[in-house]
């Protein structure tokens, strides 16, 4: 059974359709890169999966449990429990500016895990993992973009998610700073974290992803291994897109 199953997902903003019959599956340990032009529905797809947008129709199943079935959602408790198993990283980091780096990790964790005593320890371990243990007591305003995104990744990992969603995690960064963020993501991929990554970083899609989804006009126009997509795309649209982006 796939870990994440998406079937015939539909979403429109007013009269503008953004997702049309999107279907795909994610196995545990998969690293899926979602590529495509701006406005193709990549980010909306991710946001629908983690309940930031309400879909108009379709099915989403996580580890056999329905998050959306035929366009309707389960009761809030079941919904919350499922969403608790997912982590998300945003393009604009969305760190809490009034909390230090350590507080950004620990406070939400303690709010959502009453009685948890391992917050401090987990926080130290994760900050060490992203190489920012020395910034624990600093406020986000004092960090560079790359550092902020690494903190955001550590924060999302606090609740030990089973799948991580990345929404263009390096798009807001200075090109010189994307490397440090991609390195952390590559490390997560090597540790077999299940990941769904919306990205314009073709190098990441090519060498870190296990599969690539190419989206066009709210549908998955082509799906395959990085090898298939990058060296022998079947769909001329895919080839046209790849020809237009810097590799």
């Amino acid at each position: 059974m796939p870990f994440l199953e998406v079937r015939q997902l539909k979403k429109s903003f007013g009269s503008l359709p953004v997702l049309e019959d999107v279907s795909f599956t994610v196995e545990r340990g998969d690293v899926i890169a979602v590529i495509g032009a701006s406005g193709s529905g990549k980010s909306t797809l991710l946001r629908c999966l983690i309940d930031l947008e309400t879909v108009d129709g379709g099915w989403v199943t996580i580890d056999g449990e329905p998050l959306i079935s035929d366009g309707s959602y389960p009761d809030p408790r079941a919904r919350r429990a499922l969403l608790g198993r997912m982590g998300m990283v945003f393009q604009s980091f969305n760190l809490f500016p009034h909390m230090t780096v350590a507080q950004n990790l620990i406070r939400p964790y303690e709010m959502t895990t009453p009685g948890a005593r391992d917050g401090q320890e987990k926080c130290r371990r994760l900050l060490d993992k992203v190489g920012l243990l020395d910034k624990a007591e600093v406020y986000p305003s004092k960090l560079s973009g790359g550092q902020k995104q690494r903190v955001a990744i550590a924060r999302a990992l606090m609740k030990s998610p089973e799948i991580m969603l990345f929404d263009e995690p390096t798009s807001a960064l200075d090109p010189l700073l994307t490397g440090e963020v991609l390195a952390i993501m590559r490390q997560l991929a090597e540790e077999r974290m299940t990941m769904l990554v919306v990205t314009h970083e073709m190098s990441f899609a090519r060498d870190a992803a296990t599969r690539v989804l190419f989206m066009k006009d709210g549908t998955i126009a082509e799906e395959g291994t990085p090898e298939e997509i990058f060296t022998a795309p079947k769909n001329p649209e895919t080839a046209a897109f790849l020809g237009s982006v810097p590799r």
Partner: protein
Amino acid sequence: MDLSYIITTFLRVGAGLGTTLKLFFITILASLPLGFLITMMTRCAVPPLRWLARCFVYLMRSTPLVLQLLFLYFGLPFLPVVGVYFSTMGRFTATVWGFVLNYAAYFAEIFRGGLLAVDPGQYEAAKVLGLTRRQTILRIVAPQMLRVAMPSISNETITLVKDTSLMFTLAVPEVLQFAKSAVSSTGKTFPFVVAGIIYLLMNLVITWLLKVLEKRFDY
């Protein structure tokens, strides 16, 4: 003008300080949370609550506070049916109601501005981290809103110190009232100077306190 006259005058005018401070503290402590509640109501998903909150803010901001005080004390008892319950309301109680409601409306507007300054991404981050709506508002949004709202809150707080003198309207014995009666009975205007000094001193302390508070929100 000798020292003993100065001291006597300070004591005489200062006798109203208790009432002035009482009104100040009750108003601040009650109107800040009430104002926040009204802000939440103006953003509520239930339309009647939204309209109610907006009408309230409009009413309170668009009529003079003095008129509101006069209405609360002299007008309410004449309302049909419910008026009888207000006929025993004291002058100070009426003033407190007027101040709390009026300042809550102003604070509600200040908070509304502060909320607009909070990045929508903050709500999304809180949601994907699993925070409840309540936790999001109280632990994530409110502190950021307060940072933006702090200068306006400070301004309003200083205005409140001076506005307490509007109790004069309902002849509640406070600083200005005592100063006025001292002026009337002695024929000298010095008690007014003393009242001015008392307001200056109160705002000196409050300005300093607010500075300390604003620093705490600096991150």
